[in-house]
C-alpha cells in the first residue's frame, strides 16, 4: 500500500480477482480518463478507476445543455462523447502507468459485435485490469439501456465479451428495470465475474417557460444523492440474488454513504457525481473509513459487508407480521 492514508486502516479487498487497496473506485463518465486529476488528486489513493464509456470510434455526444441540476441530483445526457478505444489505448493508458490503482475500462457498443470488438482491442493492451460492460446508458439511441433492459440481450452481450477476454468482466446494471435480481442472475450465468450496480435512473426535467426539456437530448440519467436510497435498495437486491460480488454505485459522497452499500452486501463501491462536487471526496471517505473501523473495533473494514440485519415486523406490540 503506497500511501499513509490508505495504509492506516485495513481496507484492501479482492473483487472478482481484482486486488483493490481499498473499496473505492471512481465511476465511469465522472472521472474522465483519470489523467485529468493530475496535480489535484493522487490516483494511487484509489482502489480503482473506471474509464468513461468507450466505443470503437470517437463520438461527439449530445448537444448542450448536457447537465442540469435537480433536487439533490444531477440529470445528464452526455451521450458518451469520447475518443474511441484505440486512441484510449494509445494516448491514455501509458499515462496511467505510474499510478498504483486498478484500471477498469467501460466498454460500449451499438451492437453485440462492437462490445466484443472493443474488448478484443483492450485484450492486447497492458495496464487494463478489468472490463466493465455498459449495458445501461440511457443517453444513446442504440445499444446502452436497450441491452440492459432485455435479459436475452444482456446475456448475449455479457457472453460475447466473456469469450474474448481473460480479464474480469463486470456488467453494469440498469436501474430502469422491474426486477434487478433477475438481471443480476442472468449476468452471473453468462459468465460475469462481478456486477456494477447501478447506472443512472432515466429522468426528464422540463423548462416550463420554453416548454422543452432542460437537456438538449430530451431525457437524461439521474445521479447523485437523490438516487441513493434507490441504488442501495437495488444493490441489496442484486447482492442477495447472486454469489458474485456486487459493486455498489449511486449517490455516494461520504464514508457513511459508502458504508450503506457495503452493509447491504457490496465489497466495493464506485463514486460518481461526487467527483464533480469535490475532488477531495476520496480522502474524506478514507478518513471516514478509518474512523469507522476504529469506532467499531473492526479488524478489517470488509467485516461489515453483508452485515445488514433486516428487521422483524413492528407494530404497536412489535409482534411479527403486524408490519404488513
Amino acid at each position, binding site marked *: 500500500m503506497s500511501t499513509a492514508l490508505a495504509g492506516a486502516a485495513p481496507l484492501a479487498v479482492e473483487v472478482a480477482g481484482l486486488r483493490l487497496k481499498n473499496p473505492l473506485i471512481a465511476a465511469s463518465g*465522472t*472521472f*474522465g480518463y483519470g489523467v*485529468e*486529476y493530475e*496535480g*489535484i*488528486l493522487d490516483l494511487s489513493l484509489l482502489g480503482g478507476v473506471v474509464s468513461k464509456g468507450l466505443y470503437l470510434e470517437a463520438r*461527439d*455526444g449530445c448537444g*448542450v*445543455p*448536457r*447537465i*442540469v*441540476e435537480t*433536487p*439533490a*441530483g*444531477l440529470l*445528464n445526457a*452526455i451521450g458518451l*462523447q469520447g475518443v474511441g478505444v484505440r486512441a484510449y489505448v494509445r494516448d491514455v493508458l501509458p499515462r496511467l502507468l505510474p499510478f498504483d490503482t486498478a484500471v477498469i475500462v467501460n466498454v460500449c457498443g451499438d451492437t453485440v459485435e462492437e462490445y466484443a470488438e472493443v474488448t478484443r482491442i483492450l485484450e492486447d493492451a497492458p495496464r487494463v485490469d478489468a472490463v466493465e460492460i455498459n449495458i445501461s446508458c440511457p443517453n444513446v439511441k442504440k445499444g446502452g439501456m436497450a441491452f440492459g433492459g432485455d435479459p436475452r440481450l444482456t446475456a448475449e452481450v455479457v457472453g460475447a465479451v466473456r469469450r474474448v477476454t481473460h480479464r474480469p468482466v463486470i456488467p453494469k446494471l440498469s436501474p430502469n428495470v422491474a426486477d434487478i435480481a433477475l438481471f443480476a442472475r442472468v449476468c452471473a450465468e453468462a459468465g460475469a465475474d462481478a456486477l456494477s450496480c447501478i447506472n443512472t435512473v432515466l429522468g426528464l426535467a422540463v423548462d416550463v417557460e420554453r416548454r422543452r426539456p432542460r437537456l438538449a437530448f430530451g431525457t437524461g440519467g439521474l445521479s*447523485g*444523492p*437523490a438516487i441513493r436510497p434507490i441504488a442501495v435498495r437495488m444493490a441489496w437486491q442484486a447482492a442477495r440474488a447472486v454469489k458474485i460480488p456486487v459493486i455498489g454505485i449511486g449517490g455516494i*459522497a461520504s464514508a457513511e454513504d459508502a458504508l450503506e452499500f457495503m452493509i447491504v452486501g457490496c465489497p466495493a463501491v464506485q463514486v460518481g*457525481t461526487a*467527483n*464533480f*462536487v*469535490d*475532488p*477531495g471526496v476520496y480522502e474524506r471517505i478514507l478518513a471516514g473509513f478509518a474512523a469507522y473501523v476504529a469506532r467499531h473495533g473492526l479488524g478489517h473494514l470488509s467485516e461489515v459487508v453483508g452485515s445488514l440485519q433486516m428487521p422483524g415486523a413492528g407494530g404497536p406490540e412489535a409482534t411479527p407480521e403486524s408490519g404488513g
Partner: protein
Amino acid sequence: MARNRDVPLVGKEPLEGAYLLLTFRHPEVAREGRAGQFVMIKAGTSPEPLLRRPFSIMDVDARRETFTLFLKTVGPGSRALADLRPGETAACLGPLGRPFTAPSPGVEPLLVAGGYGIAPFHLFSLELVARGVRPRLFYGGRGAGDLQVRSPFATMGVPVALSTDDGTLGHHGRVTEPLEAYIDASPNAARCALYACGPEAMLHAVARVGERRGLRAQVSLDPWMGCGIGTCLGCVVPIQGAEESRPRFRCACTEGPVFDARDVVWRGEGVSLARRARQAEVGA
C-alpha cells in the same frame, strides 16, 4: 497547478444591489491565478444545490495568499457564498482554465465587459499595467446599478467608457456602440485587440465587430460548468479552427473559457468565422 482546498473567507465587501466582493485565502490561486482563469467554489456541503459554481478570479494578492471574487447573487449557489461569514470556509478548486493572452507589443487592448464580466478585466488590467500596457475599458450593463466596479480602473489610470441599456449611466445603448465609435475614430484602428466577457449576445456582437475590422478578439465564454477540470463534459462549446472541416465540442473549462472569437461557432451560425474565411479563400 490547480489545488483543491477549503478556503476561509477573509474579506467581504457588499456592493450595491446583488453584488459583492469576497476574498478567500488560497495560496495557489493567489500565486498562480491569471486573468481569465476561474475557480470552482461552493459554500457548505448541502446536496442542494449540488455542484460548485464557476467564478472568475478578479484579483489576487500573492503576499497575503488571497484572491477576490466579484459576485452577483442570482441563485442558491451564489447566495450561499454571499451568506458566508468571515472565517467560514468554502470548498474551492483553482486556478482553472486558460487565461487571456496579452496583446503583442504596440497593440492596444480594448476590454469589453458586460455585467459581472468585469471581474476578469480587473485582474487583466492590473497585469497589463504592470507590464506597461494601458488597456481601455468599455463597460456595459442594464442600468447604473450593474456597473459596480469602476474606481479601481480610475486608480489604475485605465480609461473607461460606460454604457447602460436604460441610459441611467454613460452611453444609452449597447456597449459595442462606444467600442465601434472608438475604433472608427482611432488613428490606430488596425493595432487594437479585443477582449470580451459578458452575456453571449454581447460576445457575439464583439466577435462581429472584430471580424468586420480584421481585429483579433478573445472572448471568455460562460457555459454551465459541472466540474471545471474536463471530466463532466457538461461545459462543451462548439469550436472550429480554420483547418477543421466540422465543429467539435471542446471543454470551456480546460480549453477555455477564453477562446479566439473566430473559432467559436456562434449560436445559429453552424460554422466558425475562421472556417468561413478559410472556405472563402479556398473557394476564391
